[in-house]
């Protein structure tokens, strides 16, 4: 039940309209960060307020919502956000990727391929991919306007010069539709290929920084690289200790005082489906 003191989905209608207009402009200019009048939410900044505002502006009673953090449905913040929407938006929730119409995520893209009609909402801490190279918003805005991305190329090249490879593991920058360099949010680079020409709509919300951006379905998303140093994703020698998957992103756990390691799927729904449905493990 929605609390009568608050509007449906918490935000007032005027705020929703403002966010909805920003979302449409974000879809029209893929990868460009649209400034929006972000509101204080009842959860702290940095804990998903951007994603929550985007979800609150799009969600309706017909939706089925899935919320994940680190790929898992049962991490505390995912539970907290899912509980929030179940309460304020009277919405059905699920842990199943294939059943969800809206998936709000922090730090992962589900392993189960997404389909047309699904919306993936990313929580974004720092939306500006150039921020760690140039702290000034006025500067980075100009760099995007001029499509002047040399500073990023130099940074990646320096990494190769020092380490022999691009040493960025997560939040690995991408080029969207050949025009804007975009932060995919702090997902592991393992997930970057899933963003490319995805049939689902990707919406990115940064609450504290007050930016919304989007990647429409079937839009080219290229991870930055060099001809002689092509983009590559993480691999493990181990497989998931629970479902045996060799294809999924693995979390590492330290299981005893001697520092023994164990690897399990980060995507809990994917892992559970493989364990309960043998055919899914094919």
């Amino acid at each position, binding site marked *: 039940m929605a609390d009568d003191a608050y509007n449906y989905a918490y935000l007032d*209608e005027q705020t929703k*309209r403002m966010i909805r207009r920003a979302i449409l*402009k974000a*879809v029209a200019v893929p990868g460009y960060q649209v400034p929006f009048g972000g509101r204080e939410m009842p959860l702290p900044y940095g804990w998903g307020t951007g994603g929550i505002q985007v979800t609150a502006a799009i*969600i309706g009673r*017909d939706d089925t919502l899935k919320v994940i953090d680190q790929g898992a449905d049962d991490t505390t913040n995912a539970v907290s956000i899912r509980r929030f929407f179940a309460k304020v938006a009277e919405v059905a929730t699920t842990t199943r990727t294939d059943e969800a119409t809206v998936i709000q995520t922090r730090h992962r893209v589900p392993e189960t391929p997404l389909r047309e009609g699904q919306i993936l909402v990313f929580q974004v801490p720092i939306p500006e991919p150039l921020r760690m190279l140039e702290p000034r918003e006025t500067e980075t805005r100009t760099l995007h306007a001029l499509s002047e991305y040399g500073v990023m190329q130099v940074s990646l090249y320096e990494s190769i010069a020092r380490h022999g490879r691009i040493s960025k593991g997560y939040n690995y920058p991408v080029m969207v539709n050949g025009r804007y360099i975009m932060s995919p949010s702090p997902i592991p680079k393992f997930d970057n290929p899933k963003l490319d020409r995805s049939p689902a709509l990707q919406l990115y919300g940064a609450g504290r920084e007050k930016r919304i951006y989007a990647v429409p379905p*079937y839009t080219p998303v290229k991870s930055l690289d060099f001809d002689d140093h092509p983009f590559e994703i993480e691999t493990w020698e181990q497989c998931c200790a629970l479902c045996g998957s060799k294809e999924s992103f693995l979390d590492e756990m330290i299981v005893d005082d001697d520092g023994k390691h164990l690897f399990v799927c980060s995507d809990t729904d994917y892992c559970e489906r493989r364990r309960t449905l043998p055919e899914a493990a094919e």
Partner: protein
Amino acid sequence: MSNGHMTDLRTLAPGLADPAHDAQQLFRAVLDATSRPGRIVSLPAAPAGPGTPSAAATAYLLTLADRDTPVWLADAFDRPEVRDFLRFHAGAPIVTKRAEAVFAVLASATPQPFEGFNLGSDAYPDRSATLIVEVPDLRGGPTRQWHGPGIDGRAAVAVAGLAEDFWQDWAANHTLFPCGVDIVFTARTELCALPRSVAVEV
């Protein structure tokens, strides 16, 4: 506000019956259309509105326009009942200068459809206007191939009633990317979106 003209509430067409939920459903239809250009989306919750423009055009405005978004009306739609409807239900200011508009409602025959609207800037391309172009039909016109973000390969779209040089103008708008206006074609209770990112083969 209404410059001496009193809105007659007895003749005013009704707005959204269930504002929060209708607007949410309408927005999702609009979002679906915008993220998949060329796809014709029907708006189940659209109220009839003042007659012309179509239910789809007025539903689009009821969903997205408010006191922060000035609306420009082409001559064909600049009538008291349309103005009253938008002022009363959306609270949107009606402007006569194209450059001030966030949303504009055009007829398919409106001359120089792109002229004078805000195109955004390289630093803030999101500040450009959205044009709602009312057409007789979203189907049955000359077929054009659309391609770009949101389209898997190509989409064959046959919007009817557009002027000969409309697509040349669109090509010019598309080359301004990331600047440029976005378009929503509307007819009856259906709409089809054409964001600036989409190229249309002439």
